């Protein structure tokens, strides 16, 4: 295992020390592993927290700041945080208008955030609403299963809901915006290599030199199927077709197109992918209203990419354009 780390057990704690030292706008509650804005909550603003297993950086801690999250709870690598963390985070960010929890749809995340909401409601009386993202079309959806995984849409949702909260919309309104984002967003990813969980010390899966894992999860969960390596053009089509078919997106729609790197893939390749995505969308008559290209929701050191499309109306678009000032996304401020 080749990683810039010390003891695998200290990975999360030490990264939080680094984040705190690097960003004056952030504070860290090290006991509870919470990254939060250095400024106290603005009264009347809905607080937004998120969190999840670590290993997806900059998600979520890198999205804490004006116009996005108020706090992020960092779990162990690929393991959701525990209820105590969310309870403490809710307390930190509560400005009297209630708190929205952004939860990616994994059994562990959902249960731990739910327990936190239950305990907070019974103890502190703060109103807590959870919105769950489940945008990964690689997973067969069904009410009989855990449903789909939450992936790339989470980034867009945190930005857009964050902007809505900054406008002093109510908790229900912010939650509605968040649900609209999840309802209109779809994603799918592909891995060229496995990731290596530090505590495991070896790659999660073996992938032949000529193979890739189509529909991989951001924790290295196996995807739809293993297929031969393909040119960027074909990969873009393999990822886009299921996305486009699922919502479905139709000609004339405006979208935010998000090409994401999974941690081990350089920007050069992401721009090549974006070029293919942009071309394919043009062929489908879909208008790229905004775009985002970079590594924003990663799977440790995995080489690969995911594509997320979010169908936008004017409200979502103006919320996307609103000022944001976080370590990983920043504009308009």
């Amino acid at each position, binding site marked *: 295992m080749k990683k810039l780390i010390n003891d695998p057990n200290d990975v999360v704690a030490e990264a939080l020390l680094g984040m705190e030292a690097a960003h004056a706008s952030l504070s860290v509650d090290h006991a509870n592993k919470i990254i939060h804005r250095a400024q106290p909550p603005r009264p009347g603003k809905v607080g937004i927290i998120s969190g999840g297993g670590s290993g997806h950086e900059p998600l979520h801690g890198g999205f804490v700041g004006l116009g996005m999250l108020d706090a992020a709870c960092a779990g*162990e690598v690929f393991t*959701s945080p525990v209820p105590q963390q969310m309870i403490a985070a809710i307390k930190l960010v509560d400005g009297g208008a209630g708190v929205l929890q952004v939860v990616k749809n994994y059994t562990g995340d959902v249960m731990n955030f739910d327990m936190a909401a239950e305990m907070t409601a019974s103890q502190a009386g703060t109103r807590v609403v959870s919105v769950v993202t489940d945008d990964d079309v690689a997973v*067969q959806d069904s009410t009989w299963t855990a449903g789909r995984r939450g992936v790339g849409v989470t980034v867009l949702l945190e930005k857009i809901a964050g902007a809505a909260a900054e406008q002093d919309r109510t908790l229900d309104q912010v939650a509605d915006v968040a649900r609209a984002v999840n309802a209109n967003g779809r994603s799918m990813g592909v891995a060229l290599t496995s990731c290596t969980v530090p505590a*495991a010390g070896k790659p999660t899966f073996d992938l032949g030199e000529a193979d890739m894992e189509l529909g991989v999860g951001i*924790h290295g*969960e196996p995807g739809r199927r293993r297929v031969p390596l393909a040119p960027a053009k074909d990969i873009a089509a393999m990822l886009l077709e299921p996305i486009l078919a699922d919502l479905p997106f139709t000609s004339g729609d405006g979208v935010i197109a998000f090409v994401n790197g999974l941690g081990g893939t350089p920007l050069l390749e992401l721009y090549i992918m974006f070029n293919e995505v942009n071309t394919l969308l043009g062929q489908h008559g879909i208008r790229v209203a905004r775009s985002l290209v970079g590594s924003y929701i990663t799977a440790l050191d995995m080489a690969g990419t995911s594509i997320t499309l979010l169908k936008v109306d004017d409200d979502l678009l103006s919320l996307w354009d609103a000022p944001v000032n976080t370590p990983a996304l920043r504009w308009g401020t």
Partner: protein
Amino acid sequence: MSENLSAAAMAQWVRQFATLIAQNREHLTELDAAIGDADHGANMDRGMSAVVKALDDAQPTAAGAVLTGVGMTLISTVGGASGPLFGTLFLRMGTALGDAGEVPSQELGTALRAGLEGVVARGKAELGDKTMVDALAPAADALDAALAEGLPLADAVARASEAAATGRDCTTPMLARKGRASYLGERSVGHQDPGATSVALLLEAASELGR
């Protein structure tokens, strides 16, 4: 394990479980790598290490309190799916045993069933969904039946352990419908469920102490 459930016996069981988890840490992680995210061994080991540390620091004097303490520690140190689920399992078992210092051994059956119900309430998994429930439910059934037959606790626990092991093995051909493995659909078939494997270790720990 004596015929009355004491705090000391419960602590011994929990410590033995922690030992088995530590020994099987890599195995559990490998099972999880195949159909999940390669952290189940680390998760359970982190939690059970914290449990042992807490027991070293201060051990409750009531049997039930030992188990609720374990549940609280698991919930606050594990995270993921196994944190709330194993946490709930122990919390409910402890609550079912009540406040008494020692409780009659039959109560273990009641406790395990309460724990199972807690897990099902939290995780919504049914039998056959390829989760820890597939080891836990048969174990609870076997324990109840054995105790009802009037078997001594040690024998009853041994039967429950066998049932858990069989339940664990039966997860291999199943198609996952809950938890992270469910994302795999058909590709989850042919792999043993890590959580069910941990449950089998929990019952194995009990049965080892009974021997």
